């Protein structure tokens, strides 16, 4: 696989009047990755994504796609990328299929009915393709947005908050589609979202910006390995009172919190065997032990919120 970054942003700056929305941001996205693009509201995420897709021109800096300048190779680059910026808006007086056909023509791709059927099946809209888009819910428009982004078989897809408006099943379906396309077709994703659990679940890399400036970039596991894990133990039944074994220094020092049948602790990954040993020592049975990196905590820390 090529080691040239699919996206390379160099020293991007964008001002709106006196307000500097993006201040000297540089980052790279490697091929085959699923890169989470995070930042609080007003951090410059949307402006950056719009500059990546040529909707907004940077005041200074350079954007390279596949090693080529967006400024001089715009047309060929747009053939290789798909995106949903902000929210997916369609021609409401046309059907979903007509919208896709229209955008397919604009992308210069020749599609058969079978191609459209396959795409609609992938995003879960098969059978609703002849409905006018004005009758679609926001979640359905998000699905159709993903279909239009994938229409011309892009190598990179930019998704700006694609989970917004999706129901829980929709979020799971979207996650599956992204992972499947990344695994089977090697599509690179640049993914912005406020649902940090979802980002942590699927993103191999993270970029975090704040107040228009770059905060951190790197592989998700590497960035989060510096953080304590949140370990959750599921007990067979809710204890009437706090069990005596919680008085064990191991639990107290890690600020154990008992919430119904669940006991939550913060610790490093290396301490998990010690936890199991302690539970065995006090004779406490359990159904399950789960652990999770705390992207949310990490995000709030690095963005000083």
């Amino acid at each position, binding site marked *: 696989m090529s080691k040239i970054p699919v996206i390379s942003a160099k020293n991007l700056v964008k001002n709106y009047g006196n307000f500097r929305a993006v201040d000297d941001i540089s980052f790279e996205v490697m091929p085959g990755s699923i890169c989470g693009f995070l930042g609080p509201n007003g951090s410059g995420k949307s402006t950056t994504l719009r500059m990546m*897709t040529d*909707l907004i021109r940077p005041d200074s800096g350079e954007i390279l796609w596949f090693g080529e300048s967006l400024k001089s190779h715009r*047309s060929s680059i747009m053939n290789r990328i798909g995106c949903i910026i902000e929210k997916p*808006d369609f021609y409401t007086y046309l059907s979903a299929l007509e919208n896709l056909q*229209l955008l397919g023509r*604009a992308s210069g791709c020749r599609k058969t009915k079978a191609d459209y059927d396959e795409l609609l099946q992938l995003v879960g809209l098969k059978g609703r393709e002849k409905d006018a888009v004005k009758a679609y819910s926001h979640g359905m428009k998000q699905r159709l947005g993903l279909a239009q982004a994938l229409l011309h078989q892009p190598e990179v897809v930019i998704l700006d908050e694609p989970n917004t408006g999706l129901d829980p099943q929709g979020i799971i379906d979207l996650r599956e589609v992204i992972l499947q396309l990344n695994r089977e077709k090697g599509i690179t994703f640049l993914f912005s979202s406020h649902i940090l659990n979802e980002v942590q679940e699927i993103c191999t890399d993270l970029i975090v910006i704040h107040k228009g400036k770059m905060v951190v970039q790197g592989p998700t596991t590497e960035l989060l390995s510096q953080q304590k894990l949140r370990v959750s133990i599921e007990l067979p039944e809710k204890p009437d009172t706090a069990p005596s074994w919680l008085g064990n220094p191991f639990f107290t020092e890690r600020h154990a919190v008992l919430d119904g049948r669940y006991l939550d602790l913060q610790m490093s990954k290396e301490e998990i065997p010690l936890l199991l040993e302690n539970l065995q020592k006090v004779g406490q049975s359990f159904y399950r032990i789960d652990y999770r990196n705390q992207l949310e905590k990490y995000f709030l820390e690095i963005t000083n919120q």
Partner: protein
Amino acid sequence: MSSFGAILKNELYKTIRRPRSYIGIGVISFICVMLQSAFYQDGKEILSFVTQQFESTFQIQGEVLNGNLICFIVLQTLIVQMPLLVALVTGDLVSGEIAQGTIRFLLTRPASRTQIIIAKWIAGLFYTLILLLVLGFFALFVSKWIFGDGDLMALNSEGLTVIRADDIQWRWGLAFVIAFLSLGVVAGLANLLSAIMDNSITPIVSVMAIIIVFTIIGMFDLPSFDLVKPFLFTTHMISWKSLFEDPVPMQDILFSCGVLVVHIIVFLLASIWIFNKKDMKA
């Protein structure tokens, strides 16, 4: 299909499928039919009242109330409404997509912004042509079918001119060409304002405001206004009427056509420049 061809096909398809496009066609058809019905009912009575004042000077023979006269009246009536109907669609071509958000999909495709704005401009001209064809069909062909052919008694600034029926077809043809150029200027201006603004209503209202202001300037014979009048497109939009004078002031008409064409080109170039510079923040 080239990327421009595909974009143009899309723009024409959207123009045909948009419900708003049919408002203009409906209004024109309705006004034509309404005027034709009114003249069918009461036309002879009204005309005899008008022609009475000339009967002491010369004798009128034949059918004054004919298809050519109805077409002339319809054209004079609709010259005020047509720009609004054109702006209703063309003023929304870019700004409507910005307001709706669909512009983001369009601009993240391989076609350049220049190709997109030109395709939209052509779609605007296509719509203008359709409106004029509908107007021509109802105002001329249907009127002739209902009221028959005959010499045209045209009352204009020069007085009363009688145009013989066998000398009128070329005048109608040229009148519709000038009307197309005039409305092409309106479509171009609406397209320009549409590229500047981010909502659909303001460009439409702005086009009408500009036309109203320019028309008012054109109405007054004041020295300060006389300086700018030759450069206002509204001054030349009514030059089609000169085709129904005798002799036809062909030099003046050609000059007006030239001014209209220059306006069309300037508006198009300005649209391309602005659209290429514009940040799509919406």
